[in-house]
C-alpha cells in the first residue's frame, strides 16, 4: 500500500510512525511538505491513500481536496484535522473544536 502524507508543518513523522505500527504488512510511505510538490508527485505516481494534514479551516483545504480528486481520482483521500481555531464550516474541524 502506498500512502502520501501532505503536511505543510512537517509533522508527518508522527503520522508515519502510527501508520507503521498500525499495519502488519510494510507500508510505502511518502510525504510532501507543500501542495505543489505533492501534486507533482501525484502526477508521476499513483497512491492508494493521500493523507492531508489540516491545520487551518480555510477554503484552500477544500481546493486542495478538489484538485487531488481531479489529478488522482483513483486515490482515497483522508483528512487529518489538527485545528485549534475554527471559522469555516469544514466539518472535521468543527468536530475537532468541539472535542478540544
Amino acid at each position, binding site marked *: 500500500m502506498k500512502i502520501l502524507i501532505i503536511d505543510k508543518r512537517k509533522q508527518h513523522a508522527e503520522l508515519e*510512525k502510527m501508520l507503521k*505500527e498500525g499495519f502488519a504488512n510494510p507500508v510505502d510511505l511518502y510525504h510532501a511538505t507543500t501542495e505543489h510538490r505533492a501534486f507533482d508527485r501525484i502526477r508521476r505516481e499513483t497512491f*492508494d491513500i493521500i493523507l492531508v494534514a489540516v491545520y487551518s479551516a480555510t477554503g484552500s483545504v*477544500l481546493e486542495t481536496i478538489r484538485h487531488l480528486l481531479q489529478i488522482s481520482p*483513483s486515490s*482515497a*483521500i*483522508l483528512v*487529518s484535522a489538527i485545528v485549534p481555531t475554527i471559522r469555516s464550516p469544514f466539518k472535521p474541524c468543527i468536530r475537532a473544536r468541539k*472535542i478540544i
Partner: protein
Amino acid sequence: MHQGAQDYLIRHQLNSHALARAVRYSLERHRAQAQVVYQAQYDQLTGLANRSVFFDRLNFALARCNRTQTAIALLFLDLDHFKKINDTCGHEHGDMMLKTIGHRLRQSIREIDTGARMGGDEFAILLEHIASVDDVKTVAQRILEHIARPIAVNGRQLAVTGSLGITIYPWDCANAQELLKHSDSAMYRAKAQGGNRYQFYIAGLQTGSIDVELQRALANDELCLYYQPQLDLQTNTIIGMEALLRWQHPLQGLVGPMHFIPRAEENGLIIPIGERVLAMAARQAKLWRQTDGTVPPVAVNLSVHQIQEPSFPATLKRVLEAVNLPAQALQLELTERHLFQETNAVLDTLRTVKAMGCSLYIDDFGTGYSSLRYLRAFPIDGIKLDQSLLHRVPDHVNDATMLRAVIALGKTLGLHVIAEGVARQDQVDFLHEHGCDAIQGFWLSSPVPAGETPRWFSGDRDCALCG
C-alpha cells in the same frame, strides 16, 4: 468529506490502531464508490462505455468541434444476424461473443476515441480529431475485419459480421441524438446491402448542410459532367451530346442534380454552379474538337436564374473566349416550366444568345404548360420531348396519338424534335416512323464521363454503342 474525502481523523484521538482502521475504511469506501461510478458509466459485459457516458462524451466532443473547427465521426455498429447465435448457441455463448467483440472494438480504435455498447448487439464509436474521410474509412474497415475474425467460444469457432453506419460532424449538422439517428439509418443501408460493410449517412440533402456542402463542392471541384449522346434517326449519327451535371461527393459518391439543384436555385448558388457547368462543357467541347475534329454541339441545361441575369450573355461570351470555342459548339436548353416565368429581359437575353450563335432548345417539352406561345415567341431551334410522353408508347393509343401530334407540330413549325428518355426498340421504331428527328436515352447510352465517349464521334452508332 463533502468535497470528496473518504474520511477524517482528529489528531487528538489518533493512535496507530485507529489510523490503520481509518485507512482501511477509506480504501474500502473509495473502492465501493469507484465501483458504483463504474457500474453507472460502463457496460458490465464488455467494459465499454454505456449509452449515458457516450452521449456525455459526444456532446463534449461536439462543443470542442465547434470551438476548434475540427471534425468527429460517429459510427454505429450492429452485428449481423446476431439473434441467430443467441437462438442456436444460447445467450451464454452470445454474451461471450459480445465480450470478445467489445475487446476487439477497443483494440480497433485509438485511446482518445470512445467505444460504447448501446444495448443488445449495438455499439457506437466516437472518433475525434479526424483528419480525413479516408481515416474514418480505414478505421471502419479495420473494425469490420476485426469483428469478422472467428471467435472461440467453449471450443466452438463462431463468426459474426457487423454493419456500420457512419456520419461525420460538421458535414452532418445535427445534435448528438440526431447524429446517432443518422448513423443508425446509414447502418440500416449497410445491412440492406448485405451487411459486413459500412455506409455513410447521406446528409447532403438537408437544407442546413447542403449550402455549406455546395460551396465546398465548388471550391474543391467536386462537380463534374457526364455526357449522353443524341442520335439522328435519319443518318444514324451522333448529332449532339448533352452535358449532365453530377456531384462527386466525397462520402456519398455520385449524386444526381435533382438532389441539389433545387436548393442551389433557392440559395443563389445556381449562378456560380451554372457558370462552372458552362465552362466545363466548353472546355470539353474544345478538347473533343482538338482530338476528334468537328464534333456535334454540347448541350448545356440553363436555369432560369441564369438567363434572368442581365450579365448572362457576357458570361457566356467570356466562357467561350476562354477556350476559343465558337458559340455554335454549344446548345443551350431551358426547361418549359422556367419559360413560364419569362419576361422581356429574358427574351432579350435569349435573342442575344441566339445572335451569338448558340442554338436554343426547350427542354422537357410536354411536362409544363406546353404553351404554343413559347414555340412562337422564343427564338428556339428545337424542342426536346419529355420522357413522360414516351412511357406508354406505342402500346397506349391515346399517348401514341398525342406524341404523334406533338412531333407533327414541332416539324410543322420547322423545329428540330428530339425525344428524351428513349429506352426501348419499339419506341425508337415509333419515333422513326413518325418523323422525330433524334433520340436520346438509355436505349442508346446512359450518361458517361467524358473519357468514355470518344468512339461516339466515329459516326457509326453500333460502334458508338459498343464504346
